């Protein structure tokens, strides 16, 4: 019973991710890649992603504090973040990254800062959602 309950919970969580567009099809693909020989593949990937992305975000935030702001560097990291987020299907995070990059591209540093805050929020919430999912 419990396990069934847990499964249901997992399923519900997962579904909600897709519904909310927090995750996109990439995530399903990752799941498909999972197999008997590596049942925790998806989790491993996400762990890697979180680790790298957290570092990226911190670097960005640091860069945004320095004056003058090294926008090239920020853009590079955003690009990497974009790639990583795409790899796990972190949909909303990806959107925020793109938005921020666009704003940065226009030279709007203030807007970029705001964008990064948004990004950070999205990312944190994403992480918060996924972690319990994996723990279950």
């Amino acid at each position: 019973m419990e396990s069934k309950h847990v499964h249901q919970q997992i399923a519900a969580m997962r579904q909600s991710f897709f519904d909310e567009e927090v995750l996109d099809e990439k995530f399903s693909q990752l799941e498909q890649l999972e197999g008997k020989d590596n049942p925790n593949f998806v989790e491993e990937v996400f762990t890697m992603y979180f680790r790298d992305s957290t570092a990226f975000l911190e670097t960005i935030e640091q860069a945004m504090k320095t004056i003058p702001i090294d926008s090239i560097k920020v853009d590079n990291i955003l690009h990497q973040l974009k790639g990583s987020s795409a790899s796990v299907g972190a949909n909303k995070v990806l959107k925020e990254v793109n938005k921020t990059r666009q704003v940065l591209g226009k030279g709007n540093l203030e807007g970029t800062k705001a964008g990064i805050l948004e990004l950070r929020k999205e990312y944190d919430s994403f992480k918060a959602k996924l972690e319990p999912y994996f723990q279950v």
Partner: protein
Amino acid sequence: MVLAESGFSSPRNDAFPAGLRVLVVDDDPTWLKILEKMLKKCSYEVTTCCLAREALNLLRERKDGYDIVISDVNMPDMDGFKLLEHVGLEMDLPVIMMSVDGETSRVMKGVQHGACDYLLKPIRMKELRNIWQHVFRKKIHEVRDIESLEGFESIQMTRSGYDLFDDGHFLSGDDTTSGRKRKDADNKHDDRELSDPSSTKKARVVWTVDLHQKFVKAVNQIGFDKVGPKKILDLMNVPWLTRENVASHLQKYRLYLSRLQKESDIKNSFIGMKHSDLPSKDSTASFGPHKAMNMIPDDVPNGTYSFSASNSLAQNVDLKGQGDLKGITSAPVAEPKGALSIDIHDSHEAKSTQMSFDHSLGSVDSAVSFASFNSTTPLQYPWTEIPEIQFKQEGEPLHLENGFSQLPLPGPSMIENEANRSRIEVKPLLDECRSNFVEHLGPVGAEDLFPIQSKGQSLNNQVFDLISATKSSMKTQDVGLNYLADSELALRNLNASGVGVPLATLSEDLQICWLQGDCYPMNYGLQDLECSTYDNPALMAETPFHLYDVLRFDHEHLFDPTEYYAIDQGLFA
């Protein structure tokens, strides 16, 4: 393996595209992991690496170890497009680019650089599943090439065709057997007879350093403008090579050269050397001065001169010098690989090199009144005798020694600058070269080299920097150094290293000259180096890799051409 003449009846048939050997290059570890997984799911054999440099090393170590390369566009150590070029030139493997960025301009750039395909991240499984088509397509084309040449097929078959068969390449009537190229099965099926040439899988022609040298030589002999695959093929006199092979290689070569040319043009600006018609013989001599100026009086530096125009000169000069040297010395200086060294001796050949020098010299002259160097004693060093002799032939192309002493050529400032730049970079290379050469040179008296080297190093470095070729020149230099050691004289003037280098580089330069024909001294310089292993072609060959790798990477910013050299070298190697 069962070879099915028609259709895929061989068990391997089913296997393909399974077991396809894929090399994945991406700086993002998350992506590497995902791609690895996905590819494994397609039953491919996956190798991952996160550095482009590492990838190139892997590819070089096992030339036939991979069927296809997938690379990300944005990577920290090397631009994905550059990697693409390298792989295309050196290994002729299909390369797929991928990126999160799917902008049309990027995709176009990818295709321009030779990518087979451009995938957008996130990559879907189905996209990866289909990458085998690129491998297959290449195989078909290769087979077609073979078919076009009568008799080649049989040769090819025996040589490489068996790879196909071994792996169960099935021969299908007109359809080329796709089969994965399996190098493991190399020649296992020697006894197999390919009844259907078209079906035989043509093994991809590996453009070894030797082969490429021949190619370049042939191109230079014909004259870059008049070159045509058929002519080249005839000149090269390689029985199993097909016209198609040459044609496609020529195309790549041209692209490469034009790219170098652009870069050299930029570089030339400071030297102001452009291929101008230089007095044929004199030019060589002038190279000497150039070299000295930039690099080390030894012609060797010629190659190193970064300036494109001058480069050619430098190289040419070097080559010549080397050729002469080689001829004379015959000893330690192993004849440069390929005809260069030999050619040098040959008057006609030398001429050709000279010609190249001339061109370069011309430019050089204009830029720098190296002429004064020309007079410089080719090599006062012990082996200078040789060089002198040779130089004389050429018109003293190598006044290396003299050049050294004369270093104060009018235009030295320019060269010096370059040299200086290259010096830094060249030095490491030189050291490498030296060590390499020293070993080989043995007889020369490696020790001598060292002292000279140190001196020449500075010069050499300069020279090297100038021209990615410096690497090659280094080698030659090493050889030269040995000789020079005795003559410290020249070396001192030059920085010793310069002289040493010229000798070595000369041979190489010659190669370069030939290779370049027009003025690709730069590239050739490197090539020459590698190819022109004086003492030990093999030894040289070994060094080149790391040399040019070093050059490549070190000088990347300095000389893009160096990268090309690497490629060239890769070709040679």
